[in-house]
């Protein structure tokens, strides 16, 4: 979607809210309306997430299994969903001294969906069409991120969590790479991604004249 097209589809702002003429109290009211909307959209997002969570977990687990198997020869990794929320990682060629299967809570990986849906739906002064289109793009990106995150969890488990088996199959660089990658993806990136995507779509709405038409 082009920026021009998106701008054309936006709800018209009241005259005082356009560009440089927007007075400060009205601009602050935009933020307050966002906060008020969040009170409504956050519980809705949470209920939605709870409803789709089992299906989402299954999708993320199977997609991450496929991705892991694409990156290994022979393809020995299996990831099973247990109790609708735990990914059990195992290998066909070893039990790594009883350390496999290794469990990862998949719901911990995809819960930022709540934040993403809540904040995208709460943004004021955006038409429904643009709101859902932007949410759709953001959902596509975050789904891909969930799969990558679980993939890094699998490699992290192989490289650092299986004792002697890990030491025999992964060198110091690989252990640090997968360990750091998992840490970065699973804490800062996971928590910041919904906000970063929201900022990418709506920073101009927030900042008004600072990032105004002159920058377009």
């Amino acid at each position, binding site marked *: 979607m082009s920026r021009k097209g998106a701008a054309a589809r936006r709800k018209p702002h009241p005259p005082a809210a356009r560009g440089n003429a927007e007075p*400060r109290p009205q601009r602050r009211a935009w*933020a307050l309306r966002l906060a008020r909307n969040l009170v409504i959209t956050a519980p809705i997002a949470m209920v939605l997430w709870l409803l789709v969570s089992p299906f989402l977990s299954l999708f993320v687990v199977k997609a991450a299994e496929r991705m892991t198997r694409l990156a290994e020869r022979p393809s020995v990794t299996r990831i099973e969903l247990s109790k609708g929320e735990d990914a059990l990682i195992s290998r066909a060629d070893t039990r790594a001294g009883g350390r496999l299967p290794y469990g990862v*809570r998949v719901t911990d990986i995809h*819960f930022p969906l709540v934040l993403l849906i809540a904040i995208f739906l709460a943004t004021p002064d955006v038409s429904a069409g643009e709101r859902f289109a932007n949410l759709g793009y953001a959902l596509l990106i975050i789904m891909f991120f969930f799969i990558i995150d679980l993939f890094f969890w699998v490699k992290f488990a192989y490289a650092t969590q299986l004792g002697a088996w890990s030491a025999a199959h992964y060198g110091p660089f690989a252990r640090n790479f997968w360990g750091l990658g998992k840490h970065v993806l699973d804490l800062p990136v996971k*928590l910041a991604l919904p*906000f970063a995507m929201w*900022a*990418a779509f709506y920073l101009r709405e927030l900042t*008004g004249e600072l990032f105004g038409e*002159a920058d377009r």
Partner: protein
Amino acid sequence: MAKRKRGGSRKAPAAEEPKAAPPTASDDEQPTRRRLRPEVRFLLTFIVVLGASFAFLAWKPVNDHVVEPFTGQIAKASGATLRALGQDVTRVDTMLRSPRFAVNIKNGCNGVEAMVILLAAIVAFPAPWKARLLGLVAGAVAIQLVNLVRVVALFLTGAYLPRLFDTSHTVVWQTLVILAAVLIWILWARRVTPRPVPA
């Protein structure tokens, strides 16, 4: 009120000029030496500061000598609040224990992640450094207050409604703390966005 310096540390004159002239034909014909879009600039700075801050905090000496003691202070404040609420709580380092329940406050539950996200967003946003500093201090205090409520609420949930603890811990409170950080940033950004000069 004195007129605020527009745009803070931003150097691009076009973005600082509130009344930019409409583009003309000659503007369109100029060679395309375009500045980064503001969103891209914001996101790049945000990602760099976020990554650098987390790398710094993950460094073992910083984690052992700064983050862990800080988490211990959070446990201390949470323990005091829980005792004020009538709970028989004792604290050992980052662990809170009562006859009914025990929690260990770890990285991810100390509000530091939310503070770092706020730091990265504030640094990435064009504003005067003084406003940034004030936003950071006030935002960090607000986030820690929300986090204190989180720890206390989670402890009480674990003690009296243990079946709800996991969902509450992972989904509800993590989301609320990050949402709090985002909202604080939005309110701050709206406040520091320069006031338009009347025509």
